[in-house]
């Protein structure tokens, strides 16, 4: 049981690695740009939070009580921030846009390779695998991959960057407090891992069932036509 589980996680990693290879191999340059854009976008949003603190402590507070306030510092800070925000927005657009090229390109390639591979399979394969099952790999399973590539991968990356940036900020503020939060986060991760495992099991079952629906439909379609 334990071994099986380990093998499964190992396989999952293998699949993920293979998928990532698809993403990185054909679109190396674009992928690098996507990574940079995600970093820019994530840092811009973290800086955005830090900016408020700086704005209040270092710019606004000294101005309070000043009868004839000089707003040029404030204006300067806001302009700098605007530039950072614009960079962030450009970054977001760029990675969303390039990710479309990559994800759709990868999906197209996967479909092509799948079809090509299907042509080389022996007849025995087609006799022993229901047609519905094969068909739903082209649509349902590839569709799920689309969500994974275009949403999950960049999201994971973007969150990781923000996390690191925020962590730095937190350590800079208070080390002990940060350590306490990290312990709590660890507990949270364990809990969600437990649920994720259960839900992925059910999700696989759902994909399987869909292929059965497909099969039943094809079967029944035959009946409406023949008898």
């Amino acid at each position, binding site marked *: 049981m334990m071994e099986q589980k380990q093998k499964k996680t190992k396989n999952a990693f293998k699949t993920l690695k293979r998928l990532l290879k698809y993403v990185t191999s054909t679109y190396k340059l674009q992928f690098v740009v996507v990574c940079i854009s995600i970093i820019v976008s994530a840092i811009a949003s973290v800086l*955005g939070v830090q900016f408020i*603190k700086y704005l209040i402590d270092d710019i606004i507070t000294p101005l309070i009580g000043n009868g004839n306030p000089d707003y040029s510092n404030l204006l300067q800070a806001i302009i700098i921030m605007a530039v950072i925000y614009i960079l962030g927005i450009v970054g977001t657009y760029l990675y969303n846009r390039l990710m479309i090229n990559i994800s759709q390109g990868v999906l197209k390639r996967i479909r092509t390779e799948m079809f090509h591979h299907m042509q080389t399979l022996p007849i025995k394969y*087609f*006799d022993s695998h229901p047609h519905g099952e094969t*068909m739903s790999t082209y*649509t349902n399973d590839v569709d799920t991959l689309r969500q994974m590539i275009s949403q999950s991968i960049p999201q994971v990356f973007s969150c990781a960057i923000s996390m690191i940036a925020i962590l730095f900020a937190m350590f800079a503020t208070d080390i002990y407090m940060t350590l306490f939060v990290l312990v709590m986060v660890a507990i949270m991760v364990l809990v969600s891992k437990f649920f994720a495992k259960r839900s992925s099991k059910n999700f696989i079952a759902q994909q399987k069932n869909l292929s059965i629906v497909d099969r039943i*439909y094809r079967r*029944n379609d035959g009946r409406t036509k*023949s008898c």
Partner: protein
Amino acid sequence: MIKKLSKFIGQYKKDSILTPIFVIFEVIMEVIIPYLMAKIIDVGVQNGDLNYIFKIGAILVVSAFLSLTFGMLSGRFAAKASSGFAKNLRKGMFYNIQNYSFTNIDKFSTSSLVTRLTTDVTNVQMAFQMIIRILVRAPIMLIFALAMAFSINSRLALIFVCTMPILAVALFFIATKAHPYFEKVFRKYDVLNRVVGENLNAIRVVKAYNREEHEEKKFEEVNSKVYDLFKKAEKIVAFNGPAMQLTIYTCILLLSWIGAKMIVGGSMQAGELSSIITYAWQILSSLMMLSFVFVMIIIAQSSAERIIEVLDEESTIKNKENPVMEVKDGSIKFENVSFQYDDAKAEDELPLEDINIDIKSGETIGIIGATGSSKSTIVNLIPRLYDVTKGSIKVGGIDVRDYDIETLRNEVAVVLQKNVLFSGTIKENLKWGNKEASDEEIVRVCKLAQADGFIQEFPDKYDTILDQGGTNVSGGQKQRICIARALLKKPKILILDDSTSAVDTKTDALIRKAFREEIPNTTKIIIAQRITSVEDADRIIVLDDGKINGIGTSEELLKTNEIYKEVYESQKKGDEDDGTKTEEN
């Protein structure tokens, strides 16, 4: 559209309502937590009141726990509600498809129906789950954050009110632009499915003729189209995130500028500015969630429309009111029958034109004609697989359109040339004809169809398992099993549409002999390419270009009909050359 689909929530209504309720509870808890934290700091820490800190701290832990529980519960109910909803949708579609006539199925195409039942339903299911969870959560968060922002400083909060409509317009624009592309994507998905499906079904032919490359080229064409369309659609959607960020960043900068002046002017506290900006971030995150759901809904909208098309499609062939429930005998009468397919153009030739035939009950009729002379079309009209365009067909003296469809089809059995067997045992396949058939009955019809012999030679006899599509029996054997299956229905009319094409001439003759002797009262219509299959029929119809060219016995036709004579002579000569034909395939 929503009204039509919501009907399918059915027994999952409870779950669909519980989900948003728990979502609301979850949000309330999440909102209480920062408030409690502020209390601990502002009241507890400032006054050094340890008791107070512990008391509020305890409430804090309970709230956090409750929030987690509510979150889990809402997720659970949402999953149940959405997958239940999808199940009901598929069921509804499937049931309606069962009522479809051939015309209906031609209209959608099989592959499109498959995509609609799977991909489209999944899209709607995802969107439904999002709607009952995120679409409840995000607006509540949004309203709450807005309300808090207003309570802190209503003048500053007005900035939100000004920028939101701009965002709404942008989102609306994105949606209306992207929707048609998604629609097209799904139509291409149908084609993709069709190419894969065709390839799967015809894999033997593809391999035999080395057509792999050609198939791949065909696939590549659709594949590229799907790629192009998806890219176009997603390119538009890609503006979603940046538009959102642009709005919220503009808000923050405006807040900072105006807020700073207000603070310096003394009309606001520095702490208030920082919390109003915190709420701005909360608004941003709920807007982000909304935009995510929004994209899902755009995609699901196209899918939902496709689902509704399937649900709303009414069968072109329906029971009349008070249909006739009994077929008296096997007589068939064609009166001035003309037929045209629905999708044909006006100038197209009619597949059948002005057909008049009178067939007595128990008669054996042969139909021959070149490929494309509408032999199959003529028999498809009898069990109402298609309806006539003009004229009428009477079975047992009553117009076929007056019968209950099930009654009619039970009495008219059609065996197609390319017939379908299902994975399962031979016996299970035969029982499609009649669920209650006894073993003796099954053996009897198999003997009639000359199938008993080879079935008995299988090690598992009638329990031999057939592969999908019956690939482990020969073409001729498959045809004989299909004939037996039709016989099990004990029909009054039996139509063999070129269904002994792969059976050798000797066995073919034995089958006809058995028909003549064992089921003399059943009307038999035999369509064939082979002249020997129809030669001994009571009457033979020669079809040419959708018209009757001649009717009569073989002898009569040999004297009067040119086409028949020509076919007869060419085939008889061929037969003499190679003696008895061996089984094909």
